[in-house]
C-alpha cells in the first residue's frame, strides 16, 4: 500500500532534497523500515536500534501523533499521509 511520507527539512539531506517520498507499508513500523531501507542516512535518526521512535521525533498518521495511538504498530491506511516532525518548543 502506497503511503506518502512528509520529510522535515532537517532530514532532507538524506532524501536527496525530497520533501515528500512514497513508500509501501501497512503499519508505521513497516513504513519507517522501508524508508530507512531506501534512504539509509535516516537510519538511527527516526527509529532507534531497539525499534522505538527517537525521543525528539514525532510521527503523525493523517495528523495524529502515533505515540498516542499504537506507536510503531499504528496501522497506516492506503493513501494515508505520514509526517515526520522534529520536536520543537513554543512559548
Amino acid at each position, binding site marked *: 500500500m502506497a503511503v506518502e511520507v512528509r520529510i522535515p*527539512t*532537517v532530514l532532507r539531506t538524506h532524501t536527496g532534497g525530497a520533501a515528500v517520498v512514497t513508500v509501501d507499508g501497512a503499519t508505521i513500523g513497516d513504513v519507517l523500515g522501508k524508508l530507512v531501507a531506501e534512504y539509509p542516512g535516516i537510519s538511527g535518526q527516526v527509529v532507534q536500534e531497539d525499534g522505538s521512535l527517537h525521543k525528539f521525533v514525532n510521527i503523525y498518521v493523517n495528523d495524529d501523533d502515533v505515540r*498516542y495511538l499504537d506507536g510503531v504498530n499504528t496501522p497506516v491506511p492506503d493513501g494515508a499521509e505520514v509526517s515526520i*516532525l522534529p520536536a520543537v*518548543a*513554543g*512559548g
Partner: protein
Amino acid sequence: MSMYPSVLALIGNTPLVDISSLSPNPAARICIKLEGQNPGGSVKDRVALSLIEQAEHDGILVPGKPDQILMEPSSGNTGIGLALVCKVKGYHLKVVMPTNVSIERRQLLELWGAEIIESPGSEASNGAVRMAQKLAADNPEWVFLYQYGNPANPKAHYEGTGPEILRDCPEVTHFVAGLGTSGTLLGVGRYLRDQLGEKVQIWAVEPPSGETVDGLRNLDDGYIPPIFEELGGAELLDRKTVVRPRESIEWTRRLTDVGIFAGISTGAAVAGAIKCAASLPPGVEASIVVVSADGGWKYLSTGAWTDDLDEVTERAKSIIYF
C-alpha cells in the same frame, strides 16, 4: 468587580464563550476560553506572574531591591507577560527571542521596557532555549526562571485556569489546547483528570513548526520541555494532533463569524477542537473546552484575516505563532 489594587490582579478569571455554532457535530458543544482578555494579552500572563511570585516566595527575587535582572527564552507571549509583570514590580528583563516572530511581539516587549536578545530564527524556539541556557551559565547573577522547566508554569494552570474551566463548564468532557511549553496542557489537564478521572479527555494541538525549521543539524537538536517529561505529559495526553498553517488561518478567520478576534495559534487549537467534535460517535453528548492563547492584535501585520489565503499561509510558515 470594579476596583483592583494593581493591574496584576486582572490576570486570570478569563471568560468562557460558547461557540457551538461552529461545531460540525450537533451533540458536541464547543466553548472557548479567551486568554487574550488578560492584561498583557495572553495566557502567558498567568505563567509570568506565577514564575515571579514563586521566585519571590523562594527568595530568588526580592521585591524593591534595585538592579535585579531576569533573563528568559520566549517566542513572545511569555516574554510579554514577564515584561508587564517586571515593569510593574521594578525588575529588569532580557528576553531571548527568535528573529522570526511578528513585529508586534517585538513592539510589545519594547514598550514594556524589556531588552531583546535575538536568537537565530532558523533554530526557532529550540535555538532561543539553547542560547538562554548558555547566557545563564555565563551570567550566574541573572535570574533564569526557565518556563520550560519550572513547575510554577503548570501550577498557574492547575490552580487557576483548570478550576475556572470546571467552575464555568462542570460538564466538560474534552480539553483541547496548543502545545508550546506544555504548561497549559499539564496544569489544566492534570487538574481536570484529578477532579473528573477518565471522564475527561486531554487533546494537544501542535503546529507543524518543526517541518520547516532548517537550523537543526539533526534530530538530536530537538527539544522536549523538561516539565513535560517530569510531570508525565505523555501519560496525561489522550491524543495529539498536528494542525497546519492553512487550517490554522482558516479557523482564525472562521472565528470572526462568532465575533472572536484571536491569534493564529487559536485557529490551530480550534481546528483541533473541531477534529475532536467530528471524531465522536454520533449522538454522544460532549462539551469541548478549547483555549485561545491570545487575541489577534499581535498578528495584524501578517494580514491573516484580509490578505489572499495562499499568501498568508506561506507567510505563516515562516513565522513562529506558538
